[in-house]
């Protein structure tokens, strides 16, 4: 199984969720985070100089899926989250060894 960790723009969250739903992906865990990428944030000009706003609010979506679904989910998120502007986000895929449903105790695979 894989853990897909997608960090996206908050304003694209609804669209990403919708796109996943349409493809029957429901399970997800969502966290409010802040982040910056390689462009080091946004630089604002003002009278007294410049100011770098480096930690911009983002939404992190964690989704655990079977290995076979992994690529599809990554692509879905990528497409729905893309605005083409900087700060669009990143997706990381991590290996998951076990996944257990608490209610039943059953091991998912």
């Amino acid at each position, binding site marked *: 199984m894989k853990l897909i960790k997608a960090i996206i723009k908050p*304003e*694209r969250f*609804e*669209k990403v969720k919708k796109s996943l739903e349409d493809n029957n992906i429901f399970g997800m865990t969502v966290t409010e985070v802040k982040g910056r990428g390689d462009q080091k944030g*946004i*630089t*604002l000009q*003002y009278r007294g100089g410049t*100011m770098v*706003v480096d930690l*911009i*609010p983002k939404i992190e979506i964690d989704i655990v899926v079977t290995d076979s679904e992994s690529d599809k989910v990554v692509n879905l998120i990528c497409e729905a989250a893309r605005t083409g502007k900087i700060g669009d986000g990143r997706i990381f895929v991590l290996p998951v060894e076990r996944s257990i449903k608490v209610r039943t105790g059953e091991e998912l695979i």
Partner: protein
Amino acid sequence: MVIDSGATAWVLASTALVMIMTPGVGLFYGGLVRKKNVINMFALSFLAFALVSIQWVIFGYSLAFGQDVGGFIGNLSNAGLSLIGMGPAVVAGTEYPIPGLLYVMFQLVFATVALAIVTSGLAERAKLSGFILLALLWTTLVYDPLAHWVWGGGWSAALGSIDFAGGTVVHISSGFAALAIALVIGKRAGFGEHSIEPGNIPMVLLGAALLWFGWFGFNSGSAIAANGLASSALLVTNTAAASGALVWMVVSWMHGGKPSSLGIVSGAIAGLVAITPAAGYVTPISSIIIGGVAGALCYTIMLFRIRKGLDESLDAWAVHGMGGLWGAIATGIFAYSAVGGKDGLIHGNVQQFIANCAGAFAAVIYAFVVTLILALIIHKTIGLRVSEDEEYVGLDLSQHGERV
């Protein structure tokens, strides 16, 4: 006329009540915007308060209440509050049982809250320096003349149009100004594309509570007396608010939605706006109707605005502008001489109805057009809107270097 200490006590207290309405608007608007703009929205109200407080003392009061110039504006005879003292206030020929300086101060807090309401049209995208310039010009060129027309001995009063506590002066002016500004500066980034949700609803509710509270001073204090008229104004103010709240709630509920808390308080504000010009002229039962109609009307207009993709962001236009317009007309309809000495349409006085419509529509046009011109000029010169990046990051950080 001598100064009556009871009247003075009530107008002093009313001034405090109206004063708290400006931060009330700050909380109301601050809670409606996204988290990244809360501080800015609240700060704009403070700024509005501070700017007008100084402008009013230096020349604003004089423009509104100084010696009449052609029915349009006051002259600078009272600039720096010269000739105003601790003796009874004399305004446009009428003497009041309160000190002149208190009348100045009571009127001051009306001018501040009007400007605070205007910030709706700039929500989440106002450039601070541009706002400051607009604020000073707007209060001088829009608010002060309008106050003069209605209360300072101008043409509107001469025509016979009545506005007890500022439905036209405060609400029509600010509501239509907000609309004009929103049209000039354009939509917020992302408006209509993704949902823009209110960042702090309890803050909105608190703001609404302070507005309702302060409105008691706004309307009842406008009697400039502590008497039966002030009491009647208080009662109808509250009833209209309640009626507006319940009607907006019910209409939106039946409309297939849920009865949101924002709907309840928006309805209350709509009712308060609508009763403002009428507060000293109508009966309790009329106030239920006036407030209720305002609730339904402003809700409908808000939906219309959204449908049209118009980003007058916090609905100053729908609630204050259109609610104020309805109030002015309603005053012409429901005024009853047993309450405030004037009859309206339902008591057979067509004249009053016409005068009120004329006064209100003139204010609509004046406020809208002049604000449009002012906003355009500023927008094209020093700018009235922040850059795209600043808007994205949020005004709290980009304009104030602060964050919630």
